[in-house]
C-alpha cells in the first residue's frame, strides 16, 4: 500500500513520520510506502485519516491518496481533491474520469492522443496494447499501464542521513526562561516524536540559542541511558538553563538530538529496585541546583595513596579501584575539608597538646608517626607524617605534619 501527498509545505517531514521509505516524486508531490501501518492504525481509511490529521496539525495543505501501487496513488492525489482511498483492483475504475494530461505525456504523444480524441484515462486504458506498442512505442505502453492503474515499480526512496534537529526563529526576543520553556517544549516534543517513530531514543540533546546583538549560548544535555521522555527533557533543560542562563535575550532556538537505539532491559524478580535512570537524572539535576555542580555524584577511588585519592563521577562507571569487603566492622574516618590548621605543642618530640578550630585538648594516647609519601617522580610530590591521637576532649583524631605545618585531617568515628 502506498500513499501520495500532493500540495505545499514540508511534505517530506510528515511522510518521514509515517514511513522510512519516502520518495520525493516532484517538488509538490511526495510518495511513501505505508505497508505495515495497518497493524498500527487498522484499515487504509484509518491510515489515511491519521496522515490527514497530522497534516492538519502541522498546517500543511495537501491532497492525499492511498492505492496499491505508487503511480495510482500519485494520479489520484493529483487528480482528486481531499482524501482518496482506492480499493485494491478498482484502480482503473477509480482513475477513469481523470484527464490524460495528469500522466504528463510528452508534447508529441499528447498531440497524437488529442488527434485520436483520447482525453480521459479510461479511453487510454481501453486501447489495445499491441496497437499502442506499434504506434506509440514503449512510452505509449507505459502511459496505458498508468491509466489502468497497473504500473508496478519500486519507490526511489530519499537517502537522507538520520538527522534529528529542529529550529525556531522567534518573532521577538525572549528574555525570560518561562516563555522560552514553551518553545523548548515544542522542539522537544517534535524531536521525541520523530525519534519514537523511528524506534530510536537519545542520550544527548544539544541546544543552541542565538542571542540578540550577536553571540550564541550553547548547552549540551547528556543522559546515562537512552530515552524519549519529553517531560523529563524539558525539566532538565529548565534546570540547566536556570543554572546557566543566556546572558542576553534569545532570538533563535536550535535543538538537535543524537539518535541511539533504545535500551531494553528486563529486571529480575529478585533484583533489588534501583532508581529509574531518567528520573534519577532529573533528581540529580534538581539537587545540583541546590548544592552546586560537581557536588553530587558517585565516588570512585583512584589508584594512589595520596590523601583524598578519589574523584566524583557523574554516573557510576565501576572504573574505580575495587576494595574487598572486610570480615569485621572498620573504624571510619571523617574528613575536615579543608584540613584544620593546628597548633601542636610537642613533648619529647611527640604531640602533647593540640589546638585547632573547634578542637582543643591534651593528647592522652597517640600512635605514630606514620610516614607516607608519593608521586616523588612528578611535580606533585607529597610527603607527610601522620599521627592518630586521643585528646582529652574525648575524640580520636588524625593529625599530619608536612612542610606547611600541622593539620587535623579528620576524626575517627
Amino acid at each position, binding site marked *: 500500500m502506498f500513499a501520495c501527498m500532493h500540495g505545499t509545505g514540508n511534505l517530506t517531514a510528515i511522510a518521514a513520520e509515517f514511513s522510512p521509505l519516502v520518495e520525493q516524486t516532484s517538488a509538490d508531490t511526495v510518495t511513501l510506502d505505508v505497508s505495515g501501518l495497518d497493524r498500527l492504525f487498522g484499515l487504509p481509511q484509518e491510515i489515511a485519516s491519521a496522515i490527514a490529521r497530522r497534516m492538519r496539525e502541522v498546517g500543511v495543505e495537501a491532497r492525499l491518496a492511498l492505492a496499491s501501487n505508487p503511480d495510482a496513488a500519485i494520479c489520484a492525489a493529483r487528480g482528486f481533491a481531499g482524501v482518496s482511498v482506492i480499493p485494491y483492483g478498482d484502480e482503473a475504475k477509480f482513475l477513469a474520469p481523470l484527464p490524460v494530461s495528469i500522466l504528463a505525456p510528452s508534447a508529441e504523444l499528447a498531440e497524437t492522443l488529442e488527434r485520436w480524441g483520447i482525453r480521459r484515462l479510461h479511453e487510454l486504458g481501453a486501447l489495445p496494447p499491441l496497437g499502442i506498442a506499434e504506434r506509440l512505442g514503449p512510452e505509449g505502453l507505459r502511459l496505458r499501464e498508468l491509466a489502468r492503474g497497473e504500473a508496478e515499480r519500486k519507490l526511489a526512496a530519499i537517502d537522507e542521513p538520520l538527522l534529528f534537529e529542529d529550529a525556531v526563529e522567534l518573532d521577538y526576543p525572549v528574555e525570560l526562561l518561562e516563555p522560552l520553556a514553551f518553545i523548548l517544549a515544542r522542539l522537544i516534543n517534535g524531536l521525541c516524536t520523530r525519534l519514537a517513530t523511528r524506534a530510536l531514543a537519545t542520550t544527548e540533546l544539544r541546544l543552541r540559542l542565538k542571542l540578540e546583538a550577536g553571540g550564541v549560548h550553547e548547552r549540551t544535555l547528556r543522559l546515562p541511558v537512552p530515552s524519549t521522555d519529553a517531560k523529563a527533557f524539558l525539566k532538565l533543560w529548565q534546570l540547566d538553563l536556570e543554572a546557566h542562563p543566556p546572558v542576553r535575550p534569545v532570538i533563535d532556538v536550535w535543538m538537535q538530538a543524537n539518535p541511539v537505539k533504545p535500551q531494553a532491559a528486563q529486571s529480575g524478580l529478585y*533484583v*533489588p*529496585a*534501583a*532508581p*529509574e535512570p531518567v*528520573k*534519577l537524572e*532529573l*533528581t*540529580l539535576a*534538581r*539537587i545540583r541546583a*541546590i*548544592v*552546586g555542580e560537581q*557536588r*553530587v*555524584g*558517585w*565516588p*570512585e*577511588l583512584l589508584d594512589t595513596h595520596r590523601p583524598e*585519592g*578519589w574523584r*566524583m563521577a557523574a554516573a*557510576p*562507571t*565501576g572504573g*574505580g*579501584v575495587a*576494595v*574487598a*569487603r*572486610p570480615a*569485621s*566492622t*572498620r*573504624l*571510619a*574516618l*571523617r*574528613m*575536615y*575539608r579543608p584540613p584544620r590548621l593546628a597548633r601542636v605543642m610537642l613533648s619529647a618530640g611527640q604531640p602533647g597538646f593540640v589546638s585547632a578550630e573547634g578542637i582543643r585538648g591534651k593528647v592522652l*594516647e*597517640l*600512635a*605514630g608517626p*606514620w610516614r607516607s609519601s608519593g608521586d616523588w617522580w612528578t611535580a606533585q610530590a607529597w610527603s607527610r607524617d601522620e599521627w*592518630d591521637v*586521643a585528646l582529652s576532649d*574525648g*575524640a*580520636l583524631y588524625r593529625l599530619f605534619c608536612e612542610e606547611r605545618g600541622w593539620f587535623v585531617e*579528620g*576524626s*575517627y*568515628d
Partner: protein
Amino acid sequence: MGAAVLRKDFESLLGGQFDWQSRRAPELAPTGVSGVDIATGGLPRGALTEIFGPPSSGRTSLLHSILASATARGEVCAVVDAEDAFDPPSAAAAGVRLEHLLWVRCGHSAEQALRSADLLIQGGGFGVIALDFSETPATGVRRISLTSWFRMRRAVEHTPAVLVSVARQSNAKTCASLMLECSRANGEWSGARGTSRLLRGIGVEVARRKPGRAVAARFEAKGRG
C-alpha cells in the same frame, strides 16, 4: 447505623473477626553488625532511624556497615553529607560498594541536606538514604523543625527505603521509629607507650532507645593494622 454494627456486618461477610487496628510490621534491613541486628532486629524500611552519639563514638562506623550491607545486596544507597565529611576510601575499606553509592556534598548547610534528602526520597529506588549531621553543631541541627522531620517521615513511608539520620543528639524525637545511641567503650591501642603504637580500633556500645525498653549491643570497629 452505628460503626459497630457496620463492623459486625462486614466481619460476618468476611467470615470472622478482622484486625482493624494493628499495622503490618515493617520489613527490616540488616545493619551488617550482628550484635546490633540481634538487639534491634534490623533497620525498619519506610521509616526513620536515628543514630546519635558524641564524636568518635562509632556512629559513622555503624553507618558504613549499614551501607556496606545494603550495597552488597545490590541496593543503591545515598549519603547526604551536610558537612562534607564523608571519606570514600574509608567507606570502601568498610566494604561499601562505591558504584552503588550516591554522595551529595552539601556545603555546611542542614537546609540543603534536608531538601536533597527529600528529593531523593521522592525520586525513589534507593535502599538506604543517610542524612549525615555528625559534624553539624547541635544548635544547627536543632533549628530543623519537627515539622520537617515529620514531613520526611511521611515521605519515606510506604517506600522500601531505610532513612537514617546520624547526629550528635536525637533530633527527630517522635518521628524516628528506631533510635540507636552510640558510645565509645574503649580505644584499643597496641604497643607500649613511647614505642611504635597503633590504633587497633574502638569498642562501640549501641543502646536502643526506641522502640520499647533499652537494649544494648556492642561491636568492635577495627582501625589500622
